[in-house]
């Protein structure tokens, strides 16, 4: 450990806080309540400076988008604009209690309403809920909507179809919503196999979950045929919005005849990932599904914005309040800053950057699918593996060069997968540097595979023993 734990800074009696004096007289704890008082907690006893130094030291052992390229495929690690942070910290926008009267919140509700309208425009969906707090939460919400829709129609449908290239959250969400998951194989071009789809579709099918472009970065060119096939058996088509950064201004899920979808504000709309969250996963639906949205739904009449609580067909709530509002403020600031034409330009540059990287890397790494791709692409490290170092080793070696690694071993349909998504905010020098580094590593594997296999060498800790961590879990001090 490069930096000791905060508890190890503890010194008995040391304090890092001060509170105003109590001012009021103390009230006795009656006999019943006093039974519930605890003796002690073991929290650290540290000073404010101890806390500042410790967490500053920890931050120095981390790497964010502000540190450099973060090419995690499917994660859309674009630059997080600082002005969005300023907006989210405006006191009159943030210091609000969820149960304040709506009359005191008209500014915030206006912002949320604008965000809703913009998301509907970008996606060609009719109604939006902002309540889900993450992408997976949006998936679950969507599948509960699907479930409720069929219950309402008194149809018993039990199956959800998921391609084998789908994000892991898709099948997991379907299970949580009580569906049986049917996985279908992709074809040799990395797309949905229409025959496999036709075979899987039947009267028990509730929905197909699809990402487009898919996790290989490939656009499903038969998308209209696919949505038609699903609709023919009376099922719904769900769009996983993780890859929206590939199509903004060029294509819309609604026009592809998807019935419902989720967005990832923390991917497409530039809000920071916070080391794993918070995110925000709004759901968009076509009109016929709007009655089933989680309650409440944000509405507007001539005079005011308000939360519509009277939703008899709603699936219910999925969050204590209205979702990750602080993230919505940032996404709103982003859309306002970039504007409609800017969003299209964003997509163009995301796709250009990805294709540039692919073009420069495709001779030295195996490209398992030759199809044109959009904002991300998948390489295989199998050639390098044959030479002595696997994709995992390549990823770890990248860290030595102060760059983050791509998503690895996903999608599962590619062996030794490296899924690369540079995003639009990287400049050409950064992209070139990333390419040069990967080419260097590829050369190192030929010349000195042990060097790569033993990476990383220069990080604060070297390769960590994950097997031991799982075998003998040490999960707290």
């Amino acid at each position, binding site marked *: 450990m490069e930096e000791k*734990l905060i*508890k190890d800074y503890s010194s008995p009696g040391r304090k890092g*806080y001060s*509170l105003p004096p109590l*001012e*009021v007289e103390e009230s006795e704890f009656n006999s019943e309540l006093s039974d*519930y008082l*605890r003796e002690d*907690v073991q*929290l650290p006893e540290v000073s404010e400076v101890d806390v500042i130094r410790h967490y500053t030291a920890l*931050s120095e052992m*981390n790497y964010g*988008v502000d540190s450099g390229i973060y090419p995690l495929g499917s994660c859309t690690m674009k630059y*997080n604009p600082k002005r969005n942070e300023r907006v989210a*910290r405006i006191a009159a926008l943030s*210091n609000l209690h*969820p149960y*304040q009267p709506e009359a*005191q*919140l008209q*500014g915030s509700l206006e912002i949320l309403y604008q965000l809703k309208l913009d998301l509907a*425009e970008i996606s060609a969906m009719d109604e939006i809920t902002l309540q889900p707090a993450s*992408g997976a939460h949006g998936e679950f919400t969507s599948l*509960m909507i699907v*479930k409720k829709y069929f219950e309402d129609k008194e149809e018993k449908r039990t199956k959800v179809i998921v391609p084998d290239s789908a994000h*892991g959250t898709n099948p*997991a969400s379907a299970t949580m919503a009580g569906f049986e998951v049917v996985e279908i194989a992709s074809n040799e071009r990395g797309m949905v196999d229409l025959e496999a789809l036709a075979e899987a579709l039947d009267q028990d099918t509730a929905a197909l979950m699809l990402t487009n472009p898919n996790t290989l970065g490939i656009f499903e060119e038969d998308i209209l045929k696919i949505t038609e096939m699903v609709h023919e058996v009376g099922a719904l088509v769900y769009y996983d919005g993780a890859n929206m950064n590939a199509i903004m201004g*060029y294509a819309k899920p609604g*026009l592809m005849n998807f019935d419902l979808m989720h967005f990832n504000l923390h991917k497409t709309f530039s809000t920071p990932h*916070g*080391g794993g*969250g*918070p995110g925000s996963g709004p759901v968009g639906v076509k009109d016929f599904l709007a009655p089933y949205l989680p309650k409440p739904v944000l509405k507007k009449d001539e005079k005011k914005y308000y939360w519509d609580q009277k939703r008899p067909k709603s*699936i*219910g*709530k*999925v*969050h*204590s309040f209205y979702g990750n509002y*602080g993230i919505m403020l940032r996404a709103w*600031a982003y*859309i*306002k800053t*970039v*504007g*409609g*034409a*800017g969003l299209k330009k*964003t997509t163009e*540059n995301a796709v*250009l950057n990805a294709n540039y990287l692919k073009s*420069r890397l495709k001779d030295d790494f195996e490209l398992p699918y030759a199809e*044109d791709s959009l904002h991300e692409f998948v390489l295989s490290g199998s050639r390098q593996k044959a030479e002595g170092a696997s994709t995992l080793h390549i990823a770890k070696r990248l860290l030595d060069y102060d760059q983050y690694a791509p998503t690895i071993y*996903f999608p599962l349909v590619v062996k030794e997968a490296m899924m690369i998504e540079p995003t639009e905010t990287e400049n*050409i020098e950064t992209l070139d540097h990333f390419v040069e580094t990967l080419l260097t590593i590829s050369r190192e594997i030929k010349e000195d595979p042990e060097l790569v296999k033993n990476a990383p060498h220069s990080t604060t*800790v070297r*390769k960590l*023993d994950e097997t031991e961590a799982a075998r003998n879990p040490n*999960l*707290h001090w």
Partner: protein
Amino acid sequence: MDYISNTPAERNKMLKEIGLEAVEDLFKMIPKEVKADEQLNIESGISELELMRKAQLTAKKNKSIDQQISFLGAGAYDHYVPGIIDALISRSEFYTAYTPYQAELSQGTLEAIYEYQSMICDLTGMGITNASMLDGASAAAEAVAMGARISRRSKVLLPDTINPAYREVIKTYGAGAELEFINLNSEQEIIDPSLIEKEIDASTGVVVLQYPNFYGSIEKMEEISKIINEDKKVVFVIIANPILLGLLKPPAEFGADIVVGEAQSLGNGLNYGGPNLGFMACKDDRKMLRQLPGRIVGKTKDVEGKEGFVLTLQTREQHIRREKATSNICTNEALNALMATIYLSTMGKTGLREVGEQCYHKSHYLAKKIDQLPGYEVANKDNFIHEFILKVKNKKSNEVLKKLIQQDILLGFDLKRIGQEGILVCVTEKRTKAELDKLIEKLEVL
């Protein structure tokens, strides 16, 4: 304003490398029928100056809680947030990082989560804590689903003294897992243990209690715990308010199998209810651990024997187990967990208790004074910690609320919203004596 660095010349160079002439050529695989042929109907982008002006002007249509005196709680709490929290989480190495997939370059996030897990274990008395859940309600819902999986039983006892929003979310998730819910109706703000005794049977998989409950009262934890423990298969889920656990006994002492709750109170602001911070802890038991949703950080060693941290036990998770995963959770509330960790470090051993005590004494001071006023009654005056039910006699409670709003006071959560009488009033350490006295004075003359 966009955030594109590359110039047209650079873009042309890149296109040339790819072998294309125009950027539109990159999209030629998109079928014509689904192509958006018109520009997005969203206004043109604006500068930072314009954005800030727009945001500030819109903000003026709000009235934030620091422009008035707020006694609102009911699941979102206005506690003191030390200034150092925002300073530290504004370090971009923290907030612009992703989930720590590459552990060696993410030791900061990982070590902080390990500390968070340790402190939540300490507060709750439980053996295992995950890295965070989306919010308190979804954590409670996932705990119920986990309890049903472990007990392999589908009946859930759900008292009405649990936060109504949580009960709704629990039921939404329960509809997915096809659970059966038995509502237990309270008398005098707490659940009668005999009701649980009556309803619990061989099909009961989960019993849920909130501690303190939605009305601020403490249930008969010991008694209920004994009843639940008679059937070892039943999973006992306790929803706790962690900021009060500096003062109150850890839920583990009542035999909780899973403890969840909302940790927004720990150093996270209100933000109109989100992002919030769900926490989830369970007994140190392999069977439990295998069913626990979410990320978990563990301590291990590197190849040179140096200690470090990794995401561990990932075979429970969606990216590995897909449809067989314990949950679909991927993105969680890591930055909020970091805020809670910094909060708990700052307040420390004595500070957290002092916060709890101040909440207790201030809320009791207020409750006593109001209870003495004619026309008002505190329904649970003998049993509450920092939130109480105010009953208004001879007047409509929403009129009292409205009149006080005009005088810059938010008296509390109108229980009418959930079909009950009274107002739920919360007092945190942030309220001053002058503010409490002002409320008392206004109520007296109303």
